[in-house]
């Protein structure tokens, strides 16, 4: 079956999947949509678990990393990143 991947990236408030979504990104290999930065102000799901329940498959979660000595209070990138995917048959287009 010829298929194309859709990717959903969720950033959560903690390392737990059942906590609130604070940021997100979408990439559409199927081509139905053209997501871009700043295009939505409301998260697509309330939590990571809600994405699972809607059929998204978790493929990667960011690890918990120790805080380097002297850098304990440094903040930088969003910490709790979860990658999800869906595969969609291109035959559904025919």
């Amino acid at each position: 079956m010829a298929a194309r991947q859709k990717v959903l990236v969720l950033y959560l408030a903690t390392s737990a999947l059942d906590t609130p979504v604070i940021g997100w990104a979408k990439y559409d290999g199927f081509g139905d949509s053209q997501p871009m930065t700043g295009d939505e102000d409301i998260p697509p799901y309330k939590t990571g678990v809600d994405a699972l329940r809607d059929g998204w498959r978790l493929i990667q979660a960011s690890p918990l990393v120790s805080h380097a000595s002297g850098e304990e209070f440094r903040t930088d990138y969003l910490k709790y990143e979860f990658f999800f995917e869906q595969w969609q048959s291109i035959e559904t287009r025919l």
Partner: protein
Amino acid sequence: MSRDVGLTTVQMAEFVARGVLAFDGVVPEALNARFLEQLRAPVGDSDRTLSQAYSRITRNSSIPKISPGTSLPDCFQPGDCLHDILNLASVKGVIRSLVGDAPVFDHHFLHLTLGAENEPRRTSRAVSQHNHQDSTIDPRQAFDIQLFYFPQAVTRAMGGTRYIPGSHLRRVSEAAIARYQNIVGQEHVVCPAGSLYVFHMGLWHGAGRNQSTEDRYLYKIRLGPNAPQVRLWNDVDLVTQPDSPRPIFWTDPSHKDPVADHLMALEPWFEADTGRLELINRLKLWRYITGDPKADVDYWLTRIENEWGLP
């Protein structure tokens, strides 16, 4: 210059916490019109592409070419539009409060996004700009400011600058954050003509997609301090070590402290744990600008500095 046109202590607390202050319509309409007229000159000129528009604008004299490191008072000539704008009492007061009377010019730029009416002039499909932090990794406690001047009214459809309040203290590497398409609490500039937004240099931001029929103009100038940024605002009401700090966790609703409220206000996108680190980093910045190495709010710094007993 009178100091009464500078920022208040509450505004400074808001800037420390959110990394942005907005001043709607602070530039008079006559100056906005003059600036736009200069940018659009020669009248009737038709730019076929964005690069042609920039080629024309960079040749006209409305925005002078200035070397980085120049003292701001030496950058613009009296009578120049930008001189008049930056010398408005209220604008000058904002600049002085944050980076002093004679800040260092870094660079300036005119951001132009073409309206949908000019779609044929585009060389590629109109998209929004990724989120980014300007310049590069910048670990200083001292900070530069970036003034965003919108000479025309900006509607939501015009794709005014998007920014993430409270992101300015995160030390990231420019466009490394491009993957973050949307963040809860992000804001989009929608403002009347003549509005001025002041960003801390670290604030995450990006240009929106212009879906209107009108070209959008944004003039941006970056300024750095030439002296410690300590108590440069109207600080007469500043209290960094109150006799009776407000209770924490089991709080007292009758205890009013707008400065503390601003400094401790969490953004909706903060992670549960790093949100507390953001408070600590805000307080370190607050110590820098107040010049008080013991300043604290809600015990966040005092607690972790206490090795053996009462501070």
